[in-house]
């Protein structure tokens, strides 16, 4: 056995279970299934995996750290991300192109023209790709990594990268490349169309991403502190269920959070004088069940003027002179112990019922005697004499009305 056998054995095991390791790295943990159980057990013995909850395993911290380092390094070396070098290359190509032009080397000039156009295109494409990539990661709050420390690390890395690109573009904006391309129509056009016209957008987007990443970094750092705070509070409440905070509301100087203003209950009424509300109000009104059958007349009220609503006519019963006289007579007589003569009353108050004759008056009082319900507090006694030739009949000469319980 060679002295490297241990390393080889581990590397061999890593190679054989590369899928499992990749899954555990990308998903955060891996579930033990029948087909993977043996490999997972082996990786666990080699201290690559460590048991998690619910029959799952996760990568050991050292392994995860190693992979993160390697992947970050690879990312740095990815083609197209080294914008600084591309910018220098463009600067150099422009110098070479201008030299060839001045020296009349037409072939070289054409070759450099071609390369400058490619370089401009590459820069614009690389920036666009980079913006898209970072934007996606930011939108997803670095969802590809699961633990908080990794998110913070990713956030810091991309923040540095964004600010580097931003500084590079700002420097490039102030460089003299555009001046040096002046006079070379195709190159000027390519530069303006592919890069200069997009520069504003690139700068704004990068600044916005940088701002978001700074916010995230702050938030990520806060998350850790907040989780600790929450845990501490929960433990504290667990141990001291009856705990109450100090009477902070009695302090002379109050923190902002305690000074929340009492909510106001607000209710608004629509302005019926405003024509702006007419359409909405008529729609609401027409949907009311009470107005289901209502047909809009189309008659419009003049703005600012109220329409006088006609009152429903009330028919008041008007008493005739005779009726008033009867009521007055009975009311007076009902107070009298000795009684009032209908004929005498008529003689005195004839002006009240001047439309009727004395005979009619007596007949009317007689009819009141018959029509009014008994027990109304008055009684009427007839002053009459029998008529001999008309058997059974009497001649009523007068009626005496007096206070009483029953008509007689």
């Amino acid at each position, binding site marked *: 056995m060679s002295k490297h056998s241990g390393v080889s054995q581990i590397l061999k095991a890593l190679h054989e279970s590369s899928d499992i390791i990749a899954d555990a790295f990308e998903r955060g943990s891996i579930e033990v299934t029948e087909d993977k159980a043996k490999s997972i057990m082996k990786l666990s013995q080699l201290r690559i995996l460590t048991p998690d909850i619910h029959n799952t395993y996760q990568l050991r911290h050292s392994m995860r750290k190693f992979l993160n380092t390697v992947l970050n390094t690879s990312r740095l070396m990815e083609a197209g991300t080294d914008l600084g070098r591309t910018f220098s290359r463009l600067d150099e190509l422009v110098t070479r192109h201008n030299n060839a032009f001045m020296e009349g080397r037409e072939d070289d000039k054409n070759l450099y023209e071609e390369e400058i156009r490619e370089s401009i295109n590459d820069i614009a494409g690389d920036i666009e790709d980079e913006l898209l990539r970072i934007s996606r990661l930011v939108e997803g709050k670095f969802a590809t990594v699961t633990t908080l420390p990794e998110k913070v690390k990713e956030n810091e890395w991309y923040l540095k990268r964004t600010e580097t690109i931003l500084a590079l573009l700002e420097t490039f904006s102030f460089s003299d490349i555009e001046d040096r391309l002046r006079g070379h129509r195709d190159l000027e056009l390519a530069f303006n169309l592919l890069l200069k016209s997009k520069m504003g957008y690139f700068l704004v987007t990068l600044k916005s991403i940088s701002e978001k990443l700074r916010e995230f970094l702050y938030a990520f750092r806060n998350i850790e502190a907040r*989780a600790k*705070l929450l845990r501490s509070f929960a433990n504290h409440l667990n141990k001291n269920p009856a705990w109450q905070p100090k009477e902070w*509301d009695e302090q002379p100087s109050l923190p902002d959070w305690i*000074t*929340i203003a009492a*909510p106001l209950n607000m209710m608004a009424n629509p302005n019926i004088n405003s024509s702006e509300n007419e359409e909405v109000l008529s729609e609401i009104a027409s949907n009311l069940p009470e107005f289901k059958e209502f047909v809009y007349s189309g008659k419009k009220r003049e703005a600012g003027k109220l329409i006088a609503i006609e009152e429903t006519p009330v028919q008041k019963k008007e008493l005739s002179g005779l009726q008033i006289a009867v009521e007055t007579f009975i009311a007076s007589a009902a107070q009298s112990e000795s009684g009032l003569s209908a004929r005498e009353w008529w003689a005195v108050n004839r002006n009240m019922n001047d439309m009727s004759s004395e005979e009619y008056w007596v007949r009317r009082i007689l009819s009141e005697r018959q029509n009014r319900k008994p027990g109304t507090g008055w009684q009427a006694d007839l002053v009459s004499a029998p008529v001999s030739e008309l058997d059974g009949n009497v001649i009523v000469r007068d009626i005496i009305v007096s206070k009483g319980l029953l008509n007689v």
Partner: protein
Amino acid sequence: MFKQAVIDLLQGAFICEQTNPAAFKWLKEPVNHAEVDDYLARLNRRLIKTNNGFAYYCAWESIGQGERNEVRKTFTEIKHTIAPVVLFLQLCMNHSKQDVSPAAGDRFNYAGLLTTITENPSVLEELRRLSTLGKEFVSTDASPKGMLDRVVKQMMLWGYLTEHNKNQASYSFTGKLDYFYEVLTFLAEDERSIQTADDEQDVPVQGRLT
């Protein structure tokens, strides 16, 4: 936007990205912030932004006797909410299996939490404990779903959760949570016993059940 923002603030709303994104974005503009603040000042109120800027709310400008009475009422309400909200957030944090406390804008995984509660008697016990913290949490339905629904409903009433889709039981934590953490931070800073509570928790020892 001025009118709606001011009316909402006066009615006691917390304006955040989750509950009123348009008004929240509008208030983030310094000019609009100043305009609202000036208007509220005429009503002895001012516009306050939570420490992390996740929500806006309306506070008293100066505290007279009348306002002091209102402050007492507010504090009583806050005291009443501390324990249940802490317990609920801890429940969510434990369920996520990450040491990350919920924050404004985070999705509340209703279905996931319900499954965990149903499958784990210890988590169900935590939920039961929550229902002993106030009559607001007492549910006539004693099933895990019934109890969780009651808690979620109360968290929505208190403004810590907002519902996206009733049919899919989809919820998010609101910016008011930022305010809640601000309260906890303030109270913890003053009380040493809270700061050390986390350090003093029992450390699990191998071979011993905790």
